[in-house]
């Protein structure tokens, strides 16, 4: 076993390795085999290392080893203005940058005490729900691929491509959008946006039927999903699970319903709940969630023409003045200069906002100290918390079941390490 220490490569004995892993978990028996799974293992969905203690092929103990993608987002944001910090949130959960943007922006708006106009809120909701579908499509494709169902991966990525095209249309970027800004949006959506989303709403329900048709009656898929990785509702709450992992265990909890943000309180949608608590329950929760997201998008699209045209807050203290005013108004130039050099100042105090991201509860905690830079930024990322339950979920199961469990918790390592 070779591990690099500093500039040289040192050889480590088995005893030393055992001692090292003993700090991560308690090794039950000296007879058992220790196995390091990852960080380059394809089914860990990123750079996650799992230390397994195996009795035959049975998992006795498991410890996650994370931090391979740690980039110090929280520290870096302390040295940036509130608007500049936004671009770093895209890079945390790289499968759902819109949701991360939203969580951070809502926290900034709460700290400042401002609210965006209805049109901006509706467009945010449309994009966030599309992001939820695209994130679930990646989850569906990759976790089914882990369970040897190849076909669904290609179909899922075809539809995800369409969603990313819509994002490129509105934000100019497919992934790292940074589209939501304090007080509204970067710019209004283009004219083609409505047709593109309507077209998506037209073809998507049948496509979800297709995915389900490929998996629902697939005996191999069902055998590997049913009664695997079971967790009760009570344990799920104690382990802090959120999102489909919690709802798959029979707990009816969705931030969009319980602590409504944006205009979710005006929307008519259901929260899918399953009661088995196994991998299959989490699978069906997410599949049903995609259909509910389509319902929300449709209602938002119907409401969009009925609200005002403003997509940004009319307050130059927080929102940069439009380009057209810069040639005519001295005040606009001053505000523009102030906002892009110093940025707006946030009051002293704390703000905490929770949103329902595709993976679960995403919380942003901000501490303002009266300057234009946050004194402390903290993210409660759902993957980080959900990961901690994997050792419990996979206890006394086989290594093959662990693959299904990792897939079903839907972790994103960029978000865990941030």
């Amino acid at each position, binding site marked *: 076993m070779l591990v*690099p*220490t*500093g*500039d040289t490569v040192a050889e480590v004995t088995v005893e030393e390795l055992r001692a090292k892993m003993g*700090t*991560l978990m308690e090794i039950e028996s000296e007879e058992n085999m220790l196995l390091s799974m990852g960080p380059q293992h394809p089914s860990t969905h990123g750079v996650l290392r799992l230390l397994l203690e195996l009795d035959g092929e049975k998992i006795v103990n498991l410890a996650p080893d*994370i*931090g391979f993608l*740690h980039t*110090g987002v*929280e*520290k*870096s944001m302390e*040295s940036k203005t509130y608007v500049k910090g936004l671009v770093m949130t895209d890079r945390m959960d790289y499968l759902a940058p819109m949701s991360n943007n939203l969580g951070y922006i809502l926290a900034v708006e*709460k*700290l400042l*005490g401002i609210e965006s106009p209805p049109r901006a809120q509706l467009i945010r909701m449309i994009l966030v729900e599309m992001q939820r579908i695209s994130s679930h499509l990646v989850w569906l494709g990759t976790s089914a691929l882990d369970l040897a169902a190849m076909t669904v991966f290609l179909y899922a990525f075809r539809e995800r491509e369409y969603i990313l095209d819509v994002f490129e249309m509105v934000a100019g970027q497919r992934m790292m959008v940074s589209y939501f800004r304090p007080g509204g949006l970067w710019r209004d959506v283009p004219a083609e946006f409505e047709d593109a989303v309507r077209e998506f709403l037209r073809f998507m329900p049948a496509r979800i039927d297709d995915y389900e048709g490929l998996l629902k009656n697939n005996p191999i898929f069902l055998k590997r999903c049913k009664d695997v990785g079971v967790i009760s509702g009570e*344990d799920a*709450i*104690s*382990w*802090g699970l959120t999102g489909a992992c919690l709802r798959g265990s029979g*707990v009816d*909890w969705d931030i969009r319903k*319980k*602590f409504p943000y944006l205009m979710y309180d005006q929307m008519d949608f259901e929260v899918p709940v399953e009661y088995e608590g196994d991998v299959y329950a989490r699978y069906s929760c997410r599949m049903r969630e995609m259909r509910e997201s389509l319902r929300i998008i449709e209602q938002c699209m119907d409401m969009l023409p009925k609200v005002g045209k403003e997509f940004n807050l009319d307050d130059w203290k927080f929102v940069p003045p439009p380009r057209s005013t810069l040639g005519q108004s001295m005040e606009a130039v001053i505000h523009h200069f102030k906002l892009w050099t110093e940025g707006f100042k946030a009051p002293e*105090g*704390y*703000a*905490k906002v*929770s949103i329902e991201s595709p993976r679960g*509860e995403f*919380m942003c*905690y901000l*501490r303002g100290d009266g300057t234009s830079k946050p004194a*402390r930024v*903290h993210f*409660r990322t759902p993957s*980080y*918390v959900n990961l*901690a*339950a994997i050792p*419990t979920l996979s206890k006394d199961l086989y290594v093959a079941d662990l693959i299904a469990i990792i897939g079903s918790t839907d972790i994103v390592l960029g978000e865990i*390490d941030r």
Partner: protein
Amino acid sequence: MNHNDLVISKITGAFPDAIEETGMFRDELTVTILQEYVHGVCKLLRDDEDLKYNFIIDIVGDDYLPEYPRFAVSYHLRSMGNVHDFRLRTMVEDPDEGPKTIGDLWKIATWLEMEVYDLMGISFEGNGSQRRLFLPEDWVGHPLRKDYPLGYEEVQFSFNYDAIQEKKPYAGRRQLGDES
């Protein structure tokens, strides 16, 4: 009686001198308590029939460098039955002697405390698995502290390439406060 007042009155009822101050900002309740009461108050909040704060959202460490006490730990608690969130906060005078762990109340709390320990350097009494989580195990210092420098890499040009290469901070190479 709304949930905010209920929380305060219940804590005062059980621990009369625990609460240091309470604050409301942007409709969020923050209850600051003394460090030694953290475990007791959390247990009360979780088990009381009217409160039932059964879900812990997050534990966050804060650093107010020039002030004393310098550190603070915030527990974001939620009652799923009452649909209510609030923040329980405690000031920490000595980061090496932090509050008592609440890992026995919520299973996830140990994992959340590990993050606070790794990045902010506040240790929790009785948390047995405090170790480096995100950072390499030989890392020195706790990066989220305010006195920890951000660190920039100098740009290498052809005339000073070797001089900068020599002191470039690579993982594993000891740096920052290294006595040896």
